[in-house]
Structure formats: structure tokens, C-alpha cells
């Protein structure tokens, strides 16, 4: 459903020569050019220190680039007001219940809790946590906390979802389950997802395009298109296609290490 229209999708955000040098002189990013189209599922993969998290934060507008330009193809050229962001840690408020954590984005917008309740329950149901609305974060497993984080990112129905190594701290089984759930949500909701990971396998399994990044200085080494059809399932993980794509990403990464 999605890959057929990929070439004709309108662009969502264009990065031109985006660079970031931190105050201490570290060059985190040196001139990144990329275009993300509406409805894309794009992964940024690379070794630690390649600036992939920095790039995601620049796209989110949390930090500004030292040079270059981030251009959103919206009517006013600004970042859409609704952007979902998922961190590596669940980043929940420990003093608030699951429901109140998911409520946060709406609360900050001045929406009353009672009015938001159906929306909150729907977001929780989508990540399979409808029965845990009253629980506190510390009573949940790592995977469940991550689901709460995901529900919070989804509750505003954002057109863009930015994910910064969201499942990296989870065990293999939980991670694969969440990967599948994420794909399912992406197919039904048609958001744009930018997904940062250091796992080659995860990037190939999930995305339509993998942007391979290298370190010192952080830059994009190349792009691998994963043209396998969606929905993808366990069968895809065992296919030759999958292995070939992983090899391609791996090769692109090695190129970066060699230079």
C-alpha cells in the first residue's frame, strides 16, 4: 500500500547543509543533506557518536543547527505544531499515572482531562495498555513503559513521529514485538516516521529507506532503499531479501569506518 506511492509523495522536510558544532569544538554534524517525504518511514543508522540523535533533535527544533537549513514544506514553513517524540528512555513522569502521562501533551494545551479522556483511552488501547490507565510508571515493565511513551507521542495524532533509539534498552523479544506494533500503527495512521537506531537489523526490518551515517565528523554516507512490501512479518526476517538489505547497510557502514 505504501511503497507503491513512495516516489510521488510530496516532500515534508528538506535538510540542506545542516551542520552542528558544539561549544567545545566537537563537530557533531558536517553538512547533512536529506529530504523526508510525507508518509516515509526513514531510519537513521550509524555508530554511536555519528550525530544521528543530534540530527533528530535539529529536525525536532530542540536545538538549532550551526549552519545549514531545515525547511518544512508546510504552509508557513515552520515545524508542524504536533510532533511526536520518543526518547531512548521512556521519559515518563514518575509521579503521574499512566493516564496522566499520556494526558501531558493535551494538558499543556489547556485541554480538560475529562474532555480528553476518550482520546487518552483510545491512545492507550492502541498500544495495548487500556487496562493500565491507573498504574504508575514504576509498576510497569520496560516494554510497557515504552508503550506508554509511544501512546503519549500518538495522543495528539501528530503527522510526524521522531524516535530516538526508542527500543534500544529493551530485550530482543519485547523489541521485536514493539517493532511489529509500530509498523502496524504506521500503516494504519500513515504518519511520517524518522527512526534513529544503531541496529542494522531493526532499521532494515522497519523502514522504507535507511540513511547510513558515519562518525567524526557526523555525516550521511549513503542511502539504502528497502523495497520489501509491507506488511512485513517474521517471514521477512528470514528472507534472502532481508539478509541482502542488511548486508548492503552493513557495507555502507563499513565504508564509513574505512575512510
Amino acid at each position, binding site marked *: 500500500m505504501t511503497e507503491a506511492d513512495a516516489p510521488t509523495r510530496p516532500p515534508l522536510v528538506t535538510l540542506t547543509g545542516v551542520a552542528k558544532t558544539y561549544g567545545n569544538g566537537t563537530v557533531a554534524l558536517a553538512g547533512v543533506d536529506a529530504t523526508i517525504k510525507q508518509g516515509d518511514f526513514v531510519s537513521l543508522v550509524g555508530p554511536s557518536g555519528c550525530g544521528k540523535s543530534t540530527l533528530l533533535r535539529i529536525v525536532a*527544533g530542540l536545538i538549532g543547527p550551526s549552519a545549514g537549513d531545515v525547511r518544512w514544506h508546510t504552509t508557513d514553513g515552520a515545524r508542524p*505544531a504536533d510532533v511526536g*517524540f520518543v526518547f531512548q528512555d521512556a521519559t515518563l513522569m514518575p*509521579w503521574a499515572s499512566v493516564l496522566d502521562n499520556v494526558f*501531558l501533551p493535551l*494538558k499543556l494545551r489547556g485541554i480538560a482531562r475529562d474532555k480528553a479522556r476518550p482520546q487518552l483511552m483510545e491512545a492507550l488501547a492502541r498500544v495495548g495498555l487500556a487496562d493500565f490507565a491507573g498504574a504508575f510508571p*514504576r509498576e510497569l515493565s520496560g516494554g510497557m513503559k515504552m508503550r506508554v511513551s509511544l501512546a503519549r507521542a500518538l495522543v495528539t495524532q501528530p503527522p510526524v513521529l521522531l524516535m530516538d533509539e526508542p527500543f534500544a534498552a529493551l530485550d530482543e523479544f519485547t523489541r521485536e514485538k514493539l517493532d511489529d506494533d509500530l509498523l502496524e500503527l504506521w500503516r494504519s495512521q500513515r504518519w511520517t516516521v524518522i527512526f534513529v537506531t544503531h541496529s542494522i537489523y531493526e532499521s532494515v526490518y522497519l523502514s522504507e529507506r535507511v540513511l547510513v551515517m558515519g562518525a567524526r565528523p557526523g555525516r550521511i554516507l549513503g542511502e539504502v532503499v528497502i523495497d520489501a512490501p509491507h506488511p512485513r512479518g517474521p517471514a521477512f526476517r528470514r528472507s534472502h531479501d532481508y539478509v541482502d538489505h542488511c548486508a548492503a547497510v552493513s557495507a555502507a557502514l563499513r565504508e564509513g569506518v574505512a575512510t
Partner: protein
Amino acid sequence: MNGEDKALPRAMRVVVPVLVGVVFIAIWEALVRLGNVPPFVLPAPSAIWTSLVLNFGSLMASLWVTLRVTLAAFLLAIVGGIGLAILFSQSRRIEMALFPYAVILQVTPVVAIAPLILIWVGYDRIELALLILAWIVAFFPILSNTTLGLRSADHNLRDLFRLYGAGRWQVLTELQLPSALPYILAGMKISGGLALIGAVVAEFVAGSGTGTGLAWRIVEAGYRLDIPRMFAALFLLSGLGIAIFFSLTWAEHLLLRRWHESAVRREF
């Protein structure tokens, strides 16, 4: 916790210390009686009890004075400490300008400032002077703990708040203050005890001018070598300190038990 501690039923945690206390008092009573120790050296527990009963009216009036000063100083320390910390968190410049003076107020021994404050405020408004002195001692732990707590909010959560366009006030009330709550409560526990110490020290310095607080009762009983009454006042002071400590511990438990590591009981 080792296995032995776990095996102890909850009730034992109350029963055992109480038993130790009873045994201690019994030995004390026996030693004083058998050794014919004069009451102006060490009064028997029974003599202290008698004195407490005989002087109940005046001691309770004194307790009320000390309690009033302590609680008022403590409440003002909470308001002032948290208020100033919030002000500091909103403006680095204000913090830079004022924090050194808060430290000076804290490190200068209160006994040394007391005569000055007494003269300024005047002996006709002695309770106000006591209040100011107790407040000076009590407010700093709350200020420094709250300042630390407001800064300790999770950085990713801060980013998240920014991403959703939260204003200063929202960040303060929804993120910084809840994050700071365990720190504030820890500061309050220290301050509660310090407010009492401050009130007592101030009474000592103020001397006969107060005439009514528990600390002054102790001094007065000392002058008259009425040691049983001295002990009776002393026990009331300890009781007050214990009551303050336990009410704050209880408040902390109620506020943090659902979410904070320090208060949550683990089941394994």
C-alpha cells in the same frame, strides 16, 4: 535487608524499642532509690512524673509558647524557602545576587545574631524576635534543597515540555515542582528539627524576657535546682521534636509512596 530483619513482624518494631525504654526507666528508678541519689543530681523517673503532673498547667502553657514559635517559624521557612528557590530558578541573576546572602545568614551562628535581633525587635515583642531567630535557622535547608530539586528535573522531560510548547509556569508547576518534591520534603525534615532548636536557642538567649517558653522553664528550674521539673520540661521538648519528625515522615510517606524509590515498599 537480611533474613533476620525480614522475619521480624511489624509490631515488633514498636514493641522492642518500648520494651527497651521500660527496662531503662526501671533500672534508672532502682539505681536512684537504692543508691540514695539526691534529686538535685539525678531525680528518679517517678519524681519527674510527679513534677510533670504538679506543674502540668505551667508546663503546658510553656509548651504552647514554644510550639507556636516553632510551627510559625517552620511554616514561614517553608513559604520563604520554596518561594525564594522558585525565584532563583526563574532568574539566574537574582540567584547570583542573593544566594551568597542566604549562605551568610545560614553560616552565622544564630546565638551570635540573637542579641542584635532582640534589641531591634524589642523585648515587648519578644515572640516576634524568637520567631525571626528560629526562622533564620530553619529556612536554609528548604531553600537549598528546593533549589537543587527544581534543577534536577529530567532533561528529556524538559525537552518534551519544550516540544509541546509549554510555558514557564507550566514547566514550573507540572515538571519542576513535582520533581523537587522529594528534595523539598527532605529539606522540611531537617528544617522541622532546626526550627525547634532555633526556638529553644533564641529563648535561652532572650533569657528572662520570655519568661514563658519551655527552654526558659529549663533555665529557671536550673536556677532553683528543681531538677525534676527541668527533666519534665526536657521530656516535653524531646516529645515535641519527635512529634514534628514523625508527622513529617508520615507526610513524606503519604506524598511519595506511589512513585518515589525512597518511599515505595518493595515486594522482593
